[in-house]
C-alpha cells in the first residue's frame, strides 16, 4: 500500500516534529507545570515512535512508567515547591548564550558524524520481530544479573527517597 505507507512515514515525521516542539516547550516555557505537561506529551510521542520502531512493549512501559509515574512525581514536586500564585521569577540563568553556542557546535558535529558514518543496517534485523515472551526470556536469562541489580537499585532508591524526604522529628519543646 504505497499511499498508506507514505502517509504513515510522513505522519511519523510529523510526530517527531511534534515531539521536538514539546521538548522545546519543556525547556523554554516559564510555567513549570506547563513544562511538565509538555514533557508528558513528548514522552507519549516517543512512545508512538517506539511503536513505529516495533517496540510495542517498551512503548507501553514508557507510558506506564514515564507518564504514569515519573511525570506524576514531577508534578507532585512542582506543586509542593511552587507557590501557586505565579511569581514572575527569572526561569533561565545567565549562561544561555554559551550554552546555545556550545550546543550548535555539538549538534553540527554529531550530525556530520551521523551522516558520515556508514551504518551497518542489517536486513535480517529489520525483519526480526521482538515478542514479549522473547523479551521476558532474555530478561530472565542472559540479563538476569543486571535485572536483579536494577531491582536492588530500585529498592535502595525507594528507601533513600523516604529517608531524604522524611520530615525531621519535631524537636521536643522545653
Amino acid at each position: 500500500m504505497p499511499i498508506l505507507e507514505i502517509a504513515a512515514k510522513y505522519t511519523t515525521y510529523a510526530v517527531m516534529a511534534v515531539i521536538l516542539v514539546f521538548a522545546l516547550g519543556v525547556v523554554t516555557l516559564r510555567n513549570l507545570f506547563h513544562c511538565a505537561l509538555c514533557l508528558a506529551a513528548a514522552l507519549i510521542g516517543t512512545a508512538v515512535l517506539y511503536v513505529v520502531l516495533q517496540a510495542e512493549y517498551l512503548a507501553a512501559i514508557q507510558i506506564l512508567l514515564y507518564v504514569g509515574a515519573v511525570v506524576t512525581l514531577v508534578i507532585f514536586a512542582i506543586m509542593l515547591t511552587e507557590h501557586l500564585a505565579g511569581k514572575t521569577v527569572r526561569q533561565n540563568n545567565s549562561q544561555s548564550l554559551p550554552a546555545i553556542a556550545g550546543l550548535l557546535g555539538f549538534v553540527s558535529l554529531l550530525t556530520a558524524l551521523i551522516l558520515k558514518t556508514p551504518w551497518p543496517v542489517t536486513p535480517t534485523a529489520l525483519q526480526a520481530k521482538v515478542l514479549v515472551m522473547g523479551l521476558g526470556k532474555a530478561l530472565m536469562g542472559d540479563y538476569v544479573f543486571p535485572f536483579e541489580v536494577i531491582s536492588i537499585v530500585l529498592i535502595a532508591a525507594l528507601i533513600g527517597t523516604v529517608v531524604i524526604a522524611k520530615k525531621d522529628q519535631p524537636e521536643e519543646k522545653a
Partner: protein
Amino acid sequence: MVTSDQILLVPLLPFLAFVVNILAGRWLKDRAAWLSIATSSAACGIALPVCWAVFQGAHFAHQGTWLMLGSTPLRFGYLMDPLSATLLFMVTVVGTLIQIYAAGYMHGDPRYSRFFAYVSLFMFAMLTLVISDNYLLFFMSWEIMGLCSYLLIGFYFEKLSAANASLKAFLTTRVGDVGFLLGFLTLFAALGTLNFSEMNTLLAGAHKTHFVLNTGLLATAALFIFCGTIGKSAQFPLHVWLPDAMEGPTPVSALIHAATMVAAGVFLVARSFTLFMAVPNILPVVTAIGTITAFMAAFIALTQNDIKRVLAYSTISQLGYMVTALGLSGLGAGTFHLITHAFFKALLFLGAGSVIHGTHVQDIREMGGLFKKMPHTAVTFIIASLALAGIPPLSGFWSKDEILLAAFGSGHFLVYGVLLLTAFMTAFYMFRLIFLTFFGAARNPGVHAHESPALMTVPLWCLATGSVLIGIPGSPFMHHWFQTFIAQMAHYPEYDPSAFVMACSIAVAVLGIALAGIMYLRQKHWAAAVAKTFPSFYRLSFNKFYFDEFYFAYVVKPFQSLGRALFRFDETVIDGTVNNAGRATLFVSAVKQWIDTYIVDGAVNFMGTAVYFFNSIVKRIQTGILQNYLLIVFVSVLAFLFFELKF
C-alpha cells in the same frame, strides 16, 4: 513410649528454664519458680519411664562424635545403665520436690528468678552428669555444678561470710577438681578412651586376654580421680568447705550440699568402680579416707550448735560412709546409701530450713519446744532422723546395715568398729539436735515460731514418705532387689545378711537415741559435765579438729607471704625497668621534637603556604553553582570530541 533419645530432653528442659529465667527473669517475677518447677517436673516425667525401663533391664546408650583428638574421636553421648538410672530417678524426684519447697522458702527474695535460674542450671549440669557416658562430659558438668555451687553459696553475697564461704568452697573443690582432671587425662593416656563402657570393657577384658595394662599409670589415674571425689564429696582433708557452704539458702544446702552434688563424688567412684577394682591398692586408701571422714565428721557434729552445721557434718559423715562402702568394694551398699541418704538428708535440710523459716534463728540453743508449733516439720524431721540414725524399717537402717555388713563381712573389723561408733554418734547428735530443737521448753522467748506454708510442708511429707519407703527395694523384704540390680554393673563380693550386724546396728542406734534423750531431756547438766570431763576432746570437736586454723596457718598464710614477696619483686624490679625505659624515651623524644619542629614542620608549612597561594588563584573556578560546572563539563566533552574526531 520410651524412645531413647527422649532422655536428652531431661537435661535440656532445665537448661531451657535457666536461659529463660536468666534472660527474662525480671519480667517473669514469681513465675520463674513455676517455670523451673515445670521443667523439672517434665524432666522427671520423662526420666521416670526411662528409669522404669532400665529397672526392667533395658539399657540405653547413644554416642555422637564431638571432635577428633588427633585420630582419636572424642565422643559425647549418654549412657543409661542401672547406676545412672538410679541416680536419675533420685535427682529428678528430689530435685523437683526441693524446687517446689524453694518456691515457698525463697518467696519474697529480691533475686527470686535468679535463684531459680541457678538452680535450673544446676539441675541441667547434674542431669547431664548423671547420664553422661564419658569422663569429659562428666567433668564439664561437674565444673558447671561447681560454678552453681559457688553462685548459690554466695547467693546472699551482701553477707561477707557468704561471699567468703562461696570462695572457700570454690577454691577447695578446685584442688580436687584439678586432681580429677589429671586423673582422667592419665586414664586417657593409659587406656586411650574416656568412655565408661569402653573403659569397663577394656579393664574387664584385660583379665581374660592378658592385655597388658599399665597398672602404675592406672593406679595414679584412680588416685587422682579419687581426689575429685575428696573435693566434691568433702572427704577428709578437703571437707572444710561443706560446713561453710551452709551460708547459702537452705534449699540449696538440701539440693546441692546434701542430696545431689556432693553425692556426685561418690557417684564418680561408683562410675569408676571397675578402675578402682582393677588396681586394688587404691581401695584401702578409699576405705581409710572414708572411715576417717565418717568418724571425724560425726565427732565434730556432736558439739555443733548451728542446726545446719550439724546437718552438714552429718552429711560429711554419711558421705564418708558411702566412700567407705565403695572402698570395701560394696558398690551396691554405697549406691544404696547414696539414694536413701539423698532422701532423708534432703528432708532433714528442708526441715531445718522450715525451722529457720519459722523461727528466723539457726542456733539450736535458742530453739526448743517447737514440736507443738511446727508439727509437720517436727514429725517429718523426726522420721528423717530416725532414718539417719538407722532405726528399722526406715530406709537408713537398710543402707547403713549394708555398709556395716560389708565392713564386717570383709573382715575389716577396725573399720567396722569405727563405723559402729560413728553410727552411735550419729544417733546421738541427731537426737541431740531434735531434743534441743523440738522438745523441752522454749529457751528464747524472742522466737515466735510458726508452721511453714503448705508449699513447703507438702514436699516435706513427700520426702518423708520417700525416706520411709526407699529402703524397701534394698531390704530383705524385696530380696535385696536393689543390690542385685546394681550388681549388673560390676562384680564385687557380696555378703550374707548377718543378724549380729543388724542387732549391733539397732543397738547402737537405740543407745545413741537414749543417751541423747537422757542428756538433753532429763539430766541437762550431763552435757556440760561431759564437756568438762574431757576438755581436750570437747575442744577438738567444737573447733572441728582445728582444720580451718591449720589450713589458714599452713596453706593460706604461706600463699599470702608468697604473694607479698612477688608483689615486692614486681614493684622494685619490673616497675623500675619500665620507668627507666620511660625516661630514656623522654630524652630521645626531646631530640626528635627539635628536628620535627624546625625541619619537618618547616617543610610541611612551606608546602602548605605554596598550595594556599596557588589555590587562591585557581579556586575562582569553584563558583558553587551547579550549572557552571555542567557547562564546563559539556564544553570539555565537546572539545574532546572535536579533537578526538579530528574535524
